[in-house]
């Protein structure tokens, strides 16, 4: 009984307190103070994450599950980063430093593992960063393929979308400007760049704000459900 009631009580109490604090100036920073609790818990949870990763992949290896080869790569990379980070391995100008093993400069123990020259930081700079950038660069190709699918004029809505996209694409290029330069100043609203601006600032912004208002209401409603104890699935309880 207490396993459910205590978290519900904490949530109701803290939730109400934080709502009230928004309207009471001396309590304004209470929200920031409470997020510190989350940060503290998150630090311990990282051990949980690392432990889970090792357990899952060792299990895959032991049982020779499908694609177990990838688990070797994961585990080697995990332990390599963990070791060089914990030991603070660095080599600057050909001089090795492993302060925790008494090799090189012992004062380097105090240095952060992310200082320039440390293997931890170098691996991040020369392996992880390029790999992340590669993944991010793929986005350009995915945008092209998604646009191709979205802009097919299958029905009235899709045609409207295609038309709006066409105007905005043209309006953001010098070609769009050149195309409608002949339109007199008194009808400047019909120049493609101005039409693009209008689409972005009026219908698009209005739609976005409508969604934002909905999100605001949804957040308040969800928060009230949590505070009132109506919504409990986050506790692993599938009942209202």
């Amino acid at each position, binding site marked *: 009984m207490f396993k459910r009631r205590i978290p519900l009580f904490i949530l109701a109490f803290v939730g109400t307190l934080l709502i009230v604090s928004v309207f009471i100036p001396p309590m304004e920073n209470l929200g920031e103070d409470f*997020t510190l609790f989350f940060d503290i818990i*998150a630090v311990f949870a990282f051990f949980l994450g690392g432990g889970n990763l090792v357990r899952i992949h060792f299990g895959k290896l032991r049982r020779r599950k499908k694609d177990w080869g990838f688990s070797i790569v994961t585990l080697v990379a995990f332990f390599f980063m963990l070791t060089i980070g914990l030991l603070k391995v660095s080599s600057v100008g050909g001089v090795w430093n492993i302060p925790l093993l008494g090799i090189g400069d012992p004062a380097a123990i105090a240095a952060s593992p992310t200082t320039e020259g440390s293997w931890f930081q170098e691996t991040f700079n020369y392996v992880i960063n390029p*790999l992340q950038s590669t993944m991010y660069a793929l986005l350009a190709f995915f945008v092209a393929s998604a646009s191709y699918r979205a802009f097919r004029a299958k029905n009235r809505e899709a045609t409207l979308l295609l038309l709006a996209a066409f105007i905005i694409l043209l309006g953001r290029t010098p070609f769009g400007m050149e195309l409608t330069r002949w339109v007199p100043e008194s009808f400047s609203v019909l120049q493609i760049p101005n039409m693009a601006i209008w689409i972005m600032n009026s219908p698009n912004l209005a739609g976005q704000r409508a969604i934002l208002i909905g*999100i605001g209401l949804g957040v308040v409603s969800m928060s009230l*459900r949590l505070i009132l104890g109506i919504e409990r699935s986050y506790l692993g309880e*599938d009942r209202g």
Partner: protein
Amino acid sequence: MKLKLFVVSLVVLLSFSIAFAQEDTLTVPPIPPDSALLPAAVTGLVAKDTDNDHGHAITLKWQPSADDGAGRQSVAMYEVFRWVPDLMTRIPALRDTLEYLKLRTGDGWSPPEPGSRTDSIHNVFASLDDAQLEERKESLEQTISQAIRDLPAAHAAYPEDGDWQQVAVAPAGSATAADVGTKEKDTPDYLPDYSDFYYRVDAVTADPAIRTASEIVGPVQSYGQWFNKGRLAVSVFVLIFGLLTIFFVQHARRGADLYVRPMAGIEAVDDAIGRATEMGRPILYVLGLGTADMIATIASFTILGRVARRVAEYQTKLIVPAYEPVVMAVAQEVVKTAYYDAGRPDDYDEDIVFFVTSLQFAYVAAVNGLMLRELPATNVYMGKFFAESLLLAETGAVAGSIQIAGTDEIAQIPFFIVACDYTLIGEELYAASAYLGREPILLGSLKAQDWAKAGVIALAVAGLALSNLAVAYDWSWASSIVDFFRVVD
């Protein structure tokens, strides 16, 4: 010989007289600026406590100088000065010494760099042993606490033992400035409440030496308010919305049949799980990149619980790769309970929910790899998504999966709409949990949400009309109604 001596003495005397004459020229006080060049002073200076805050701040208002934007147009800026007692200026120096003593008596002490500020403090205390240092530290702590307590009295002694200090600068054309301090007593910006402050504002020209001070205003005290009136409209709305929710929940509890708008994305969840069962392929559930304290992630937990329950009933395989360890821990608990509730605890596998990585694109690479290897029949994306939304959804589309997405990140909604079969837009994500459960109490809160939305639309239309009418017919009552809804931070 005598003549030579006389000439040398004369030269020496002459040199001295020239040197002294030079010295005299250098120490002559600066000539006061020509009064014709001085800008007109600001007028009507008023200082009062800043509204709707926790105190420790004063707002100043004035009429700009006659030479600001008009007259000689010589005013470049305004400098705000506050009279500060000597006691207040001594506190930072005492704190520096205390900081030094704390470092010196703590672990990891290393001597400061020669010539630094800390080094000059170090020279004073270098010969003291640990016990003496500890004694000095405690004594200094008491001195600082007493000094802070004495600040109101020191301010009341105006104009004795104090001087003017610049506390704010405002550009030309300004008619207001704020002197904002902090409530933290151990910071240099601490501004004590209930102390008598005195202010003046200088109209300053491009040459900072040419300036005119205003009349001095004061005493004025800062103090905190217990209610932020600028957020009155928000508090009223939250109250009404809370009451609406409680009303509809009670209404639902009494057995009322509540109609809730259909949501195609949510209705598709059951079909998608059925499809996965028929095809013998897994369901991939992605909780997004949000942390467990985000509302979108909490809503996603709820939906995961419902999906996991159906999955357990249909005995389909579920895959939940987590981006964040706390999210993983909560999701494991949610899925476990869902399997127990479905009466299939034996089917629950701890490896259903697993941690991948907390690096955004590494996570994308891992999940995309899963999609292409496992070829899930259905991909569900619910929660907070950022740049990875399209990378995930397009890969899912390539893998031929049915895709259902929901996020409250406005910038990502178009990507999901384009690449997924069904998308929950914004608040539909929060409504989904109530809709999926079909439980009267949860539907009651959903109903309250719909009514509030109708209220917001009505208010937006009324506000638009009133704002225009207030301008067109100069209706002050209409302006005051519109102002009531203006939120001031």
